[in-house]
C-alpha cells in the first residue's frame, strides 16, 4: 500500500514538475518585466512558445550526426528524472532510494555532458564557444555543489534527499553557520547552472557573451523545444532543491495522508512564486559579469562550501 502510494506520488510529481516548469519561467519573466517598467507577456507565454516550436520543422546542419538529434531527448530525460527525484510536496517518493543527492548531481552532469557534445557536433564556432565555457563553469560549479552536499550530509548523516527533508523539517538542526554558507554557495551554483545573470543572460544572443545559448544555437523545431523545456525544468529543479534542503516546511511526510500531500502541492507552488520574485529582483539589480570573472565567482562558491564543510568537521565530534 505504501509502495503503491509512493508510486502514485512519484507519477504525480513527474507530471507536476513538467507542468509547472514553463509557468515558473513565465512568472520570472513577467516579474522582471514589471520591475523594469514593461507590461511583459502573459505568464502562459512559455507554453505557447514551446507549442509553436514543436509545430515547426527541424533544420539540421549538413554534417549533424545521430548524436545531435538524440541529445535533446537524452538531456531532457535526465533532467526530468532528476527533477522527479527532488521531494517537492512529499518525501514519500518511490524512486527516493534509487538515487541520492550525489547521483542527482551526476545525472545533471550527464545532461550537460551530452549537450556540450551536441554543441560541438555541427562544427561551428558558436557551439564550440558555448561548450567549452559551459564545461569550464561546470568544472567549478560541480565540486562546489558536492561540497554543499557534504556539509548537509554531515549534519543529517545522509545524502538521501527524502531523509534530508525529513531531518530539516524536524527542526533538530537549528541555525548553523555552515548551513548559511552552504545556502549562499548553493544559490551561487544555482545561478551559474541555470545560466542566469550575472553568469549568463538567458535573453541575450550576443555571441561574445553567450554560454548556454551559444551551445544550443543550431537547434530548431522540436529539438529546440526540448532543450528550452529542459532549461525550464532545471530552473524549477534548483528552486525545488533549495526549498527541499533549506525550507522543507509544508511537505507531507510518512503517514501524513493524502490531504497533506495535496496541501504540499499548494505550499510548493507558493514557494516557487516567492523564489521567482526573489530571482527576478536579484537579476534586475545586478549587471552581467565578464566570462572570465565567472571563475572567481564560482571559485568563491567552492571555497564557501568547503569552509562550511570544514566548520562542520571541526565543530562536531560526531
Amino acid at each position, binding site marked *: 500500500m505504501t509502495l503503491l502510494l509512493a508510486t502514485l506520488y512519484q507519477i504525480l510529481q513527474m507530471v507536476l514538475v513538467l507542468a509547472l516548469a514553463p509557468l515558473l519561467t513565465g512568472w520570472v519573466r513577467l516579474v522582471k518585466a514589471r520591475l523594469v517598467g514593461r507590461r511583459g507577456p502573459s505568464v502562459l507565454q512559455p507554453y505557447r512558445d514551446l507549442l509553436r516550436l*514543436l*509545430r515547426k*520543422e*527541424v*533544420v539540421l*546542419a*549538413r*554534417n549533424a*550526426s545521430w*548524436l545531435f538529434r538524440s541529445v535533446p531527448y537524452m538531456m531532457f*530525460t535526465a533532467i526530468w*528524472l532528476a527533477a522527479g527525484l527532488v521531494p517537492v510536496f512529499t518525501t514519500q517518493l518511490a524512486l527516493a*532510494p*534509487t*538515487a*541520492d543527492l*550525489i*547521483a542527482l548531481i*551526476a545525472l545533471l*552532469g*550527464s545532461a550537460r*555532458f551530452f549537450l*556540450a*557534445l551536441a554543441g*560541438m*557536433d*555541427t*562544427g*561551428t*564556432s558558436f557551439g*564550440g*564557444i558555448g*561548450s*567549452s*565555457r559551459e*564545461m*569550464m563553469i561546470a*568544472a*567549478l*560549479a*560541480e*565540486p562546489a555543489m558536492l*561540497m554543499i552536499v*557534504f556539509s548537509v550530509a*554531515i549534519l543529517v548523516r*545522509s*545524502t*538521501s534527499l527524502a531523509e534530508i527533508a525529513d531531518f530539516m523539517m524536524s527542526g533538530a538542526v537549528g541555525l548553523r553557520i555552515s548551513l548559511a554558507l552552504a545556502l549562499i554557495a548553493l544559490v551561487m551554483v544555482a545561478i551559474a547552472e541555470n545560466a542566469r545573470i550575472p553568469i549568463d543572460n538567458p535573453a541575450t544572443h550576443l555571441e561574445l557573451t553567450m554560454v548556454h545559448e551559444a551551445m544550443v544555437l*543550431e537547434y530548431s523545431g522540436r529539438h529546440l*523545444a*526540448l532543450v528550452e523545456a529542459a532549461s525550464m525544468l532545471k530552473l524549477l529543479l534548483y528552486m525545488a532543491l533549495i526549498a527541499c534542503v533549506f525550507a522543507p516546511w509544508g511537505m507531507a511526510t510518512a503517514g501524513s495522508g493524502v490531504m497533506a500531500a495535496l496541501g504540499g502541492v499548494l505550499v510548493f507552488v507558493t514557494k516557487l512564486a516567492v523564489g521567482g520574485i526573489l530571482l527576478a529582483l536579484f537579476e534586475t539589480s545586478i549587471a552581467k559579469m565578464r*566570462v*572570465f570573472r565567472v*571563475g572567481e565567482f564560482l571559485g568563491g562558491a*567552492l571555497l564557501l562550501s*568547503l569552509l562550511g*564543510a570544514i566548520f562542520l*568537521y*571541526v565543530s562536531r565530534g*560526531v
Partner: protein
Amino acid sequence: MGLVVSAIAFLFAMAVAGAAAKRLPQASTVVYGGTAGACALIALWAAVGLAGGGPDAALVLPVGLPWIQAHLRADALSAVFLIVVNLGGITASLFGWGYERAHHDSHGASQDGPVLPLYPLFLAGMNMVLIAADAFTFLLSWEFMSLASWLLVLSTHREPETPKAARLYIIMASFGTACLLLAFGVLATAHGDYSFAAMRAHAPEAGAAALVVVLILLGAGSKAGLVPLHVWLPLAHPAAPSHVSALMSGVMTKVAVYAMIRVLFDLLGEPDWWWGGVTMGFGALTAVMGVLYALMQDDVKRLLAYSTVENIGAIVIALGLALVFKAAHTPVIAALALAAALLHVVNHSLFKSLLFFAAGAMLTATGSRDLNRLGGLIHRMPTTAVLALIGAAAISALPPLNGFVGEWLLFQAILNAPALSEWSLKIEIAVVGAALALATALAAACFVRLYGIAFLGRPRSRAAAEAVEVGRAMRLGMAVPAVLCVVLGVLPTPLIRLFEPALRLLVEAGPFDGRAYQPWFWLAPTSAIGNSYNGLIMLVVIALLSVVLVLGIHRKASDRVRWSIPWGCGFDGPDPAAVTQYTASSFGQPIRRAFGSTVFRARDHVEMPAPGDTRPARLSVTWTDPAWLVVVEPLSRAVTWLADRANRLQFMTIRRYLTLMFLALVVLLVMVAVTQR
C-alpha cells in the same frame, strides 16, 4: 596454482613461438590466440577461487638463489588483480590481433619492431608479480615486467619521440625498483627472511615502518604515476602500439597499485593514522594535476595517459581513506573505501583499455594521433564512435555507467570522516573530497573535449575525411570492455560481493556487514548510513521516460526535417584547414585560463598583423610543467654530475688505484670490527 603456473609457462612458450615464427603469416593469430586463452584460464581460475571464498594456493619452486627458493602464493587479493590483468590481456589480445593485421595490410610488412615475442612476456611478467610471495621473486618479476614493457615501447623506435620516452622510462623504472628493493630490505632486516610470510609475521617497528611507507609510495608510485613521479608515463605509454598502451595504462599501473596494497595493508601490519593521510594527499595532488595536464594535451594517447594519472590519484585516495579508517579501527568503513578502490581498479582498467583501443582505431584509420587533425569520425567510423562514447561517458563518471559507481562509493567513504578522531585528518579529508570532486568535473570537460574534437564536428584533415571503419576483431576488442562498463554500472553489487574475500583478508570486514537484507541488484553498503544507489532501476526509468517522451513529442510535433549548411562566419570552403570550427586548444582555453595560468604558467600569445597586412594572425600557447622543473631536471642534473665525478675514476694511475683499494679494505674491516663487537 599449478594451473596458473602452467598458464604462465604457456605464455613463455607463446613468446618463443612468436620469436621463431614471426615471418609466418599465421604467427600473430597463434600468439594472440594462445595469449588470450592463457589469460582466460588464469582469470577463470581466480574468479572461481574468489567465488568459493577466496583461493589460498601456495607453491615453492626450486629455482632462484641456492638457499632461497621461489615462493609463489595466490590469495584473494592476488586473485582480484589476476582477474583485472587477464581481462585486460584477453581484450588487448583480441584488439591487438586485428591491429597488427591492419598495420600489416597497409604497409605490406610491419614497420615496428618485434611486438609478437614481447607481448606474451609482458603479460607473464605482470602475472608473476601478482603471485610472487617473497621479495626476490617479486622484484625479479617486477623488473621482468618493466623490461618487457620497455622493449615494447622501443618497438616503435622509428618514431622520433620514442628514444627520449624510453630513456626516461628506464631511469624512472630503475628508480622505482631501487626504492622497492630498499623497502623490502627494511622489512626483512629484523629476521633476514625475505619471504612475505615472515615479513607478515614480524611487523617492523614504527621508524622502520615509516621508512617503508615512504619507499613504497615512491617505488610503486613511480610505476603507477603518482605526481610528481608521473613524468615518464605520458611519454612512454603512448609510444607503444595501441593494445600495449592499453595494457600499460589500464593494467600495469594496477599492478603497481597491487604492490601498494600488498605492502601497506598486508605486510606492514597495523597501520599508523598518518600513513593514510600522506597517501591520500599524494592521491589528491595526483588526481587534480593529472586531469589538468590531460586538458592541455593535443595528442590523443598522451591525453589518455595523463587521464590514467588522474584515475590512479582517485584509487590512491581510496587506499589512503581505507588506511585511515583501518587505523581508526572502523573496519566496515575501511572495507567500503577499499571496495571503492578495487572497483575503480576494475573500472579504470576497462574504460581506459577501451579508450586506448579507440585511439588505436583512430590511428589505424587516419594515421594520426593529433586531435587537431581529426574530427567528424562519427560519420566515418560509426561503431568505434558509439563504443568510444560509452568509454568517455564511463570515465567521466556519468550514471548509470561503472565509473560513477566507484565515485559514489568513494564519496560515501569520505562522508564518514566525522567518525575519525584526528582533526587534521578530518580537515584533510574535506579538502581531498573537494579535490576529488574537482578532478571528476574536470575529467568530464576533458572527455567532452576529446570526443567532441575527434569524433564530432567536421574533419580537420583529408585523412580524417577519408577514414574507414576498422576491422571486426578490433571492433570486438572494443565492444567487450564497453559492454562490461554498462553491466558493471548497472549491477555493481555482485562484483563487490566477489571481491569480499580480499576485503576480509585486508581489513577484516566486508562493506555489507550487518545488513540483514542485501538484494544483489541494490547497492547499499552498511556504512553509507541508509544511502543507496540503484543503477538498474535508474536505467529502466530512463528508458521508460525516453519512450514516453519520444511518443509524446512525435504525437504532437512536426516530423519535417530540412538539411542545411550551418553559418560558418563566411569560412566554409571545401578545404578542411579553412573551416572556422573549434580546435582542441581553443576548447581548452577557458579552463587553461582559469586553472593553467597559475599551475602551469600557461600564456596565450597573439601575433596580430597590422591592418592592411594579409598575413594570418597567430595564437600560440606556452606552458611549463612544474614536475619537470622540480623533479626531472634536478634529478637528471644530479645523475650527470655523479656520472662526471665517477668518470674520473677511469683515468687514474696504478698507484692511486692501489691506494683506493687499500682504503676500501680498511674501511670494510673497521665496519666489520664495529658491527661484530
